[in-house]
């Protein structure tokens, strides 16, 4: 099962919060491809993708190097390193990507307000109250 299948498919615009849409709006065609790849990485705790969880804040590509800015709902997330590794592993295999840096940022602070109603519904269906 692919990561995309595990998260129930790529998040279309209706699964992206306004915050993610704003961050994604200025993406180049290649950066848009990278966003789509990242949208296939599942949150290890919840059946939604990292993009749907609004954990990916920014993706910039420059001459084969990719910088990803991301945040976490929980600062003490036990999957912190694993998720960062997932992001690096996911993008490193994309044609045109030579290196990936992942920077964890806390501005803006992640909040539940960043989740769309379809994502909330997915979470509720999995027994997670919001």
């Amino acid at each position: 099962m692919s990561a995309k299948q595990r998260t129930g498919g790529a998040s279309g615009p209706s699964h992206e919060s306004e915050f993610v849409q704003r961050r994604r709006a200025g993406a180049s065609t290649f950066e848009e491809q990278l966003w789509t790849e990242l949208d296939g990485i599942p949150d290890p705790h919840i059946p939604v993708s990292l993009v749907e969880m609004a954990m990916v804040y920014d993706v910039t590509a420059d001459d084969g190097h990719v910088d990803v800015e991301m945040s976490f709902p929980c600062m003490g997330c036990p999957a912190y390193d694993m998720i960062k590794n997932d992001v690096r592993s996911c993008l490193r295999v994309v044609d045109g990507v030579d290196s990936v840096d992942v920077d964890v940022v806390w501005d803006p602070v992640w909040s539940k307000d960043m989740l769309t109603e379809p994502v909330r519904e997915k979470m509720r269906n999995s027994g997670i109250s919001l």
Partner: protein
Amino acid sequence: MSEWPAAAVDYVQAITDTKLVLGHRYAQWSLAGPSLEDDIGGSSAAQEEVGHVRQLFRKLESQGRDGDWLRGDRDPEEFANASCLDAIDGDWTEYMATIAPVDRAAWYMLDAVDRDDMDGMITKMGEDEYFHLEYHDARLETLADESPEKLRSTLAETLPSALALIGPENLDDDADPLVDAGFTSQSVEGIRERFVDHYRDLFADTDVSLEDVDWDAPDADAWDETRRRVGGGGIRKEDLVQIRGERNAEFAIE
């Protein structure tokens, strides 16, 4: 990131080391609580404190502190944790009366930091600390009914230790170098006042007397400004083995 004043690096180091040892104390006591709720609360707090430490280490590394040194490759005397966390040998009441004031003191110190590049991180930590401190106060109030004498005698030791972590009262708005440097927006004197007022109010209508507490501690002349304590001492070797993760090193993710 711009360079911090040396005193600011020491200040954040003391907060970080306190949180590091605090996280271990939470974990060590997380199955020893009088109820499952206490165990769950302690386990969550342990995870959050270690999460805070992970981010604070990044900040300290950006200021030149060595990562291996931060993660435990140093002697106990090089840790700048609040002194009352060096060892907690008593019972649950003594444990709670030790961790609660220290967690609050460390939060007040962090909350005083006034830097745009740390604002989001500190806000996020504050979301966690809100629940830690609410829980502590609720628990201290029940313990004030159940074992006021033990609470009184422990707080007489731990409140001055937490005050030493914050710093001596002579560091007021005119004398605090971190306020002068624009690193903090509240002086040590102001943080102390906030801290003291909180505990005086919390125990005002209880059977716990705080008359024995040395509210003037620490003596500025005896205060170690790097370790933010009075006197020597430090965590035990066994604590250091746990902090370093020596016994489980083979399972580390590289």
